[in-house]
């Protein structure tokens, strides 16, 4: 068993009567990239704030770097890098000023920070923006800067709350690439996302959260193996006929999901099933065979799509 940097048992957070995080258990090992995957309101950010030692739990236990955040908040925060869901950079200051000031909050020497800034600007590909006001940056640049800022103190754990939400595909890929590099240097990552492809790309292991609870846990591959089939056949008959043919399709495989616009059929061999359907003269308007994804896992666990 590798050294566990974060360990939560029965972790619960209530806002008044409302339970945002409901008795969850998880462990994060050193060097691991751990994900919290779930839809809006699942309790991901709330969990992140508790790990970040800024929000207090209502009950349960949590230990971060071997310490209780209730008693050792500053000591824990000294070793964390936090990338919040919403950027909270200082728009009036420049890129390098933002990095500098944040470094000071950790009590780092001016000399150390100045050297570090060069490294971080390279890492975030913001060298030519160093003296630009943050207000003038694009969303992707701001996100990279927020990540760079979180790294100024050389944290043991980097916490990323929805690192790529709101970014275009290109900006997302640049960010993923940066995060891969970090992982290679041995930084432990804790990532929340509601993008299954992001979870598959970045996470060694993840928990699927919904309504404050953990529904399942494992590596992306394990989860898919456990909760879905190898392949998925997606068929569309047009919204009127979908309902009509669904009962027939249900007979043909062990599990189907009817979505508003299409029907998902879970099988080991999608092409074979499609042939069987065609043989019955049920001609779908479109069809697609694909590998199972975490989206299918989520649908199986909750009966809902990840992204509404």
């Amino acid at each position, binding site marked *: 068993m590798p050294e566990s940097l974060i360990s939560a048992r029965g972790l619960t957070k209530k806002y008044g009567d409302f339970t945002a995080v409901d008795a969850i258990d998880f462990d994060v090992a050193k060097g691991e990239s751990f994900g919290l995957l779930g839809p809006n309101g699942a309790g991901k950010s709330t969990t992140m704030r508790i790990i970040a030692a800024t929000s207090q739990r209502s009950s349960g236990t949590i230990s971060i770097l071997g310490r209780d955040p209730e008693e050792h908040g500053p000591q824990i925060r000294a070793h964390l890098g936090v990338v919040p869901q919403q950027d909270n950079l200082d728009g009036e200051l420049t890129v390098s000023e933002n990095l500098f000031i*944040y470094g000071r909050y950790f009590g780092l020497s001016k000399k150390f920070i100045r050297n570090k800034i060069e490294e971080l600007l390279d890492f975030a590909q913001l060298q030519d923006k160093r003296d630009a006001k943050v207000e003038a940056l694009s969303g992707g640049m701001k996100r990279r800067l927020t990540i760079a800022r979180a790294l100024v103190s050389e944290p043991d754990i980097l916490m990323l709350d929805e690192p790529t939400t709101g970014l275009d595909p290109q900006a997302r890929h640049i960010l993923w690439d940066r995060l891969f590099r970090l992982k290679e240097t041995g930084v432990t990552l804790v990532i929340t996302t509601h993008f299954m492809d992001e979870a598959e790309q970045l996470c060694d292991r993840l928990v699927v959260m919904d309504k404050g609870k953990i529904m399942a846990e494992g590596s992306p591959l394990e989860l898919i193996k456990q909760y879905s089939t190898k392949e998925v056949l997606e068929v569309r008959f047009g919204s009127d006929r979908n309902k009509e043919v669904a009962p027939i399709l249900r007979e043909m495989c062990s599990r189907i999901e009817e979505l508003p616009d299409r029907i998902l059929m879970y099988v080991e061999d999608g092409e074979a099933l499609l042939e069987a359907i065609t043989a019955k003269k049920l001609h779908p308007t479109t069809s697609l065979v694909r590998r199972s994804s975490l989206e299918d896992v989520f649908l199986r666990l909750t009966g809902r799509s990840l992204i509404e």
Partner: protein
Amino acid sequence: MNSGIDVAKVRARGAAYVAEARIAQMMKWKGIIAIVAIGNPLFYLVAIGIGIGVLVNENSGTSGTGGVEYITFIAPALLASAALTGALDEAMFPVMEGFKWRKLFYAINSTPINPGQIVLGVFIGAIARVVFTVVCYWALLIAFGVVTVSQSWDVIPVTIFAAGAFAAVIMGVTASVKNEDYFMTVLNRMIIMPMFLFSGTFFPLSTMPIFLQPIGWISPLWHATELGRYFSYGYSISGIMLLVHFSYLIVMMIIGFKLANKKFAERLAK
């Protein structure tokens, strides 16, 4: 893989780091801050020195001002009002930025620094702005021969202290408010404006109808103004009133800090 973070050092100096950041932010506005600090007294000097002052002195002599030139009478009052205005700017806006507009406090709070240190750091930043404003103001008054250097040594620190008490309260109150935009309108129109009008700046509070005087009594500006007059040109105040003015400002400072510490901790722990 460690940059050798010394948490004990942050425990000791966290507020200074926050103040450092506040001053860096203010430097982005240095032009405006300087223009206000120098333009404001210039404007009053001209208006009062050659306008209102002449009018007042011609019509009522120096009887209404307790035997001093009108400009001498209002100089410490204008100093106090400039100091408190500066304190207001640097106590109110950063708190709104910090919690709502750009959520900067949440960023600071994710470092080893804790909420109480943010409060103190923002306060020190406000004091830095007040010191700059007060020194500029008074230097100009000295340059124009309105006051003398020897009159300066007590009035300056006392005025800065009064502005600090005001800053602490404004920080506490601003942190307590959820709807900032509405709050700003109410604060400006209903509290700041009357405070500046009914604090004995341009004429002694005692010449106002008695039912309006309580506005002055609760206003930190009135207490600051009375103290400023006492410490600059020797305006006579009883020992009791001297004690009242200081106590009022001290209590204000303590309540302001207590409230700010509580609200900052609450909001940042959400």
